[in-house]
């Protein structure tokens, strides 16, 4: 494929990779065998272009109140400003900061022109449905931008509670904010079936399952994408902790139906990010351009899913 949107990429700048030295990820990094090294953003951009990744989502992350660590949104903005065709930015906010977090949401969207907001409930030590996060959700809904919530086991993160971003918790947020687009990163693993169920029942819930594609039980993600939630799943690598070149190889081997593969690798993310493909592209390759200014009206389009045919077994097991 030559048109890919990667929904979770972090350039290996000193600011980003310093997380490997912080207690939050120190032991996890050992476990996954990540060795900290910096590399110029230009290098990442070249590699992305070679691999066919047209656009990547870069997220800030603010863990100051719990781990004394953050990647500032200004740093993220500086990267996106240098490579506006290759990256879109999501601002990281720390909900423990109260009103300051809400003001940072506004600054990210209105001043820095970010596309969305990102939070990491289990690293903020709050359930995703905690009241401290609600003003942030309300502000994102008001501004019409999506929010990414990091889920997953967060192996070896000290003091972290896996259930903070469990799909059943996301369900409540999605019910309380029907206008808010929610992207659950890392697929709510290990609650695979629950994640599929929550994405199916809410038009506003999407997920990627980066880093967990080969885990036991993860086959169900692909099966669900092929059958009931083709419009709700996104490709993400979690680069550099999972190198996107490795990640892309994994996805090539995953048994998606071809039309579903295109949705996963590109179309669903393009809808959420409101980017379009322009046909006249340099280097013989489609280019994605941000849509014209202004909020698009309402909900990200959701084409619906063939529940009935699945229930009747007429589409088989998909994969």
């Amino acid at each position, binding site marked *: 494929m030559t048109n890919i949107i990667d929904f979770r990429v972090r350039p290996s700048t000193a600011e980003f990779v310093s997380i490997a030295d912080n207690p939050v990820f120190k032991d996890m990094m050992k476990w996954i065998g990540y060795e900290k090294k910096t590399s110029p953003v230009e290098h990442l951009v070249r590699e992305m272009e070679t691999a066919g990744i047209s656009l990547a989502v870069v997220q800030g992350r603010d863990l100051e109140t719990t781990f004394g660590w953050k990647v500032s949104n200004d740093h993220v903005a500086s990267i996106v400003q240098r490579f506006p065709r290759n990256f879109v930015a999501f601002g990281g906010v720390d909900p423990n900061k*109260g*009103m300051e977090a*809400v003001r940072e949401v506004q600054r990210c969207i209105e001043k820095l022109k970010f596309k969305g907001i990102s939070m990491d409930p289990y690293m903020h030590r709050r359930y995703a*449905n*905690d*009241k*401290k*996060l*609600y*003003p942030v*959700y*309300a*502000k994102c*809904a*008001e501004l019409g931008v999506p929010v990414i919530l990091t889920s997953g086991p967060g192996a070896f993160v000290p003091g972290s509670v896996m259930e903070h971003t469990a799909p059943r918790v996301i369900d409540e947020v999605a019910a*309380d*904010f*029907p*206008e808010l687009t929610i992207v659950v990163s890392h697929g709510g693993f290990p609650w695979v079936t629950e994640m599929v169920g929550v994405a199916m029942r809410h038009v506003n819930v999407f997920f990627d399952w980066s880093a967990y594609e080969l885990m036991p039980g993860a086959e169900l993600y692909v099966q669900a994408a092929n059958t009931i939630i083709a419009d709700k799943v996104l490709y993400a690598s979690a680069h550099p902790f999972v190198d996107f070149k490795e990640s892309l190889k994994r996805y090539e081997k995953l048994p998606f139906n071809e039309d579903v593969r295109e949705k996963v690798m590109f179309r669903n993310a393009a809808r959420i990010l409101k980017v379009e493909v322009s046909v006249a592209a340099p280097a013989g390759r489609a280019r994605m351009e941000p849509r014209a200014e202004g909020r698009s009206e309402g909900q990200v389009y959701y084409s619906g899913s063939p529940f009935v045919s699945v229930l009747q077994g007429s589409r088989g097991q998909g994969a």
Partner: protein
Amino acid sequence: MEIIDVRARPNTKEYMSLFEASPGIQMVFRKMGASMPASAPIDEFIRDMREAGISRIVCTGRDIETTGGWKVTNDYVASLMSQYPAHIIGVAGIDPLKGSGAVKETFRAVRELGLKGISIDPFAVGMYANDRRLYPVYELCAELDVPVFITIGPLPVAGPYLSFGSPMPIDEVATDFSRLKIVCSHGGWPFSREMVAITFRHDYVYFETSVYHFMPGAELCVEAANTCIPDRYLFATAFPFAPMKETVQRFRKLPFKPDVLEKVMYKNAADLFKLEPAAGTRSGRQLF
């Protein structure tokens, strides 16, 4: 002495028709031994209020549409305020269950209609004041610097739990939004000690004790006003649930120190709504 009544609703037909249709409200009148006044035009209400010695009222809207089908529109409250700007301070009613709609309406009511704060009735929709669904509304009110009136004492109404009347959830809201001005309506009884303690510990929590002023145990509120919270105890009648004239007369006889009585009946509310230039350091802070 001027008096501000921080909770009163004119007995216009817009309000009275809702009260008359509600069995719960009728139960309140029965239990409190008050009789429901007849509907009257707004100018008659203003006359009665002046006769009772009240110079201004805070008139709260109420929106519990999603559960009770009950609503006094904020446009109506704003129209009362524009008719009698010297006498009526309008405060918007917001339905806690309306999600983003509640946030939008708060913004509209304050910025477009010019209302001076908002009023919520969490008990009426079955939630506590520290419920997460209210947090976006609190955040906006703190940002706009307008007070939130929270009804926490649904005591005579049999439907909701008494625990909705506890001020304890207010402590969490005040902790999480340390600059938010919170007025607890009907707050001083029966959880008087807790209400006083929470008001004492948070610089921007206020309360009034309407309809419970003369209950056994409510003496504590007077004692607290005379000592530790002179700046944040407010006067309210909750008219039409209690008569204005009689309440004012009886309230003035409570054993307040004279300077404290003036604060409770006027200055604290004037300060809250910025009716006069700030009167200097808050004495609640001088204690430390």
